[in-house]
């Protein structure tokens, strides 16, 4: 058993076989740093719980179809939670979770215009009108 402590002080006892699904944790374990628990300062308890759930499910379940269905349900979260999961998966180096969450973000982008994408993700357009027009023209005339 490994104890993980989230940024907001919550502790989680995790089987080693589950913990190693997070490469960052795995490296720390291999380096012998896991004796007195592992702090995870970049991830809140709420998110860490979900990540651990994910890893646990993937360790326990062999059937690919069951996993796919479970993953599809797992990823139905609000946007803020999704971002937090992406960042956590990246920091903890959990490849499968990173793939799942990034795919989900990509699905939100597919088929949308730049304006729509900016709105969904609350991003400011920092191009000058001339720059934007130049890129748009190059995209449409050359790369489509």
């Amino acid at each position: 058993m490994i104890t993980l402590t989230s940024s907001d002080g919550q502790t989680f006892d995790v089987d080693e076989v589950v913990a190693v699904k997070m490469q960052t944790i795995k490296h720390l374990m291999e380096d012998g740093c896991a004796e007195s628990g592992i702090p995870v300062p970049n991830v809140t308890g709420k998110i860490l719980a979900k990540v651990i759930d994910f890893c646990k499910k993937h360790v326990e379940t062999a059937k690919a179809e069951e996993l796919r269905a479970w993953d599809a349900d797992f990823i139905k979260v609000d946007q803020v939670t999704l971002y937090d999961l992406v960042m956590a998966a990246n920091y903890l180096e959990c490849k499968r979770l990173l793939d799942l969450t990034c795919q989900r973000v990509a699905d939100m982008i597919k088929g949308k215009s730049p304006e729509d994408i900016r709105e969904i993700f609350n991003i400011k357009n920092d191009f000058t009108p001339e720059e934007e027009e130049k890129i748009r023209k190059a995209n449409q005339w050359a790369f489509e």
Partner: protein
Amino acid sequence: MNYFPDEVLEHVFDFLTSHRDRNAVSLVCRSWYKVEKWSRHRVFVGNCYAISPERLIARFPRVRALTLKGKPHFADFNLVPHDWGGFVYPWIQVMAKSNIGLEELRLKRMVVSNESLELLARSFVNFKSLVLVSCEGFTTDGLAALAANCRFLRELDLQENEVEDRKGQWLSCFPDSCTSLVSLNFACLKGEVNLTALERLVARCPNLMSLRLNRAVPLEALQRILMHAPQLVDLGTGSFDHDPDTETYRKLISTLQKCKSIRSMSGFLEVGINGVELIQLIGHCRKLQRLWILDCIGDKGLGVVAATCKDLQELRVFPSDLHGVGNAAVTEEGLVAVSIGCPKLHSLLYFCQQMTNAALITVAKNCPNFTRFRLCILDPKKPDPVTGQPLDEGFGAIVQSCKGLRRLSLSGLLTDQVFLYIGMYAEHLEMLSIAFAGDSDKGMLYVLNGCKKLRKLEIRDSPFGNVALLTDVGKYETMRSLWMSSCEVTLGGCKVLAKKMPRINVEIINEYDQMEFGFDDDVQKVDKMFLYRTLVGPRKDAPHFVWTL
């Protein structure tokens, strides 16, 4: 999302496979533009003259897979002179010099010299895939260079290219260490191949999924080769000329039945008039999704396809004899049968003797999911043989029913009415081919005004002139290209267009010196005009008979 580190953004973008999505993403903000630019590995250039190779790699320095298209589509019908352009050499040269890690190259209607192939083979260590469609300019010596030097070659796919076959041993140039082939298509080569080398090559490539042989590979060889490749998904047969009673044919059927993964078939190049054996063969391929076949199969054969191939998505029926009398060909009957039997059909290329409005209306009702519909009635301007009417209503039914239609080729007798329908209903149409159709400028205008997503328009032998050409010149900046040949457009009209639209290259092809500057421009009709939007101005490699206005 603005606080995602670059590598996370890149990971998200990895899941965006369409060029449009990547283009949209590049316009969101400066940081997204930068991340996208450095991580786009697959680049599509629909017109090689819209941009230069230098600008391509300035924008996408990490390009690994490039698609390039050259000549206009009507080059397939010999309407474009051979040396018009579309040379790939400068692109390969620039990429080689800039140390681009090129792995895949897909070229359509480009001129590919042996020097290009040799430079390609020498310059890109990880080169994996070459797909050449309707290209020309190389010989089998160029192929030998590729086979010998590309250690990780996975795909060599030659579709309908004009290749000078030096009858050399290019196939034998694949070293024994080459075991990585996934796709090999040399159907368009005319010469003999070393059958032993071929068989050994197939035998040592366990991942071979797609194999298309040429005419020179006899049935016995096909059977032996198939024994080594039961995993094949796509098969193009070689010669099919044989006696149905032979042991070889029975062995072939038995071997084919062991190839349980075949989803796509083509070839059958010398099928006899009955096509009985061919029909029997297809009867064994229930899971076909794609079938490319000659019209020798006949309406009866198409009936068998309809009854057997319930998963069929794409059908191409090619003419065996372009000036044929009609015994071997297919008619509207075959098409209707397929439309009834194959509910998943969405892509069609159909060369036929005749078509009726009734049949087209039935097909439209049965198959509302067409995305590509190309009908080529061999006799231009042929009306509905039953009613004597133009085919306006039939094609009208197609565009009205098939709401996702992106590509359409028309043929038969057609008036302006069909264009009214197209302008009204074909909302997603991207490419339209018109030949010997329409009555007046109105026809072309219906299309230009109505089809908002139109990208490529090609017109030959139709009565559209300057009024149609010049009414909405801004439209051409929203399209990739326009081809007009043997229409009513004059040199004066083209000059006006070129002057108004400096970012469009208006090219006049003057092959036989029919035209002279100085004559009355308003009277001189232009034989062939090709215009396209471009970021890089008039091209510098145009031959003497191509004038950019």
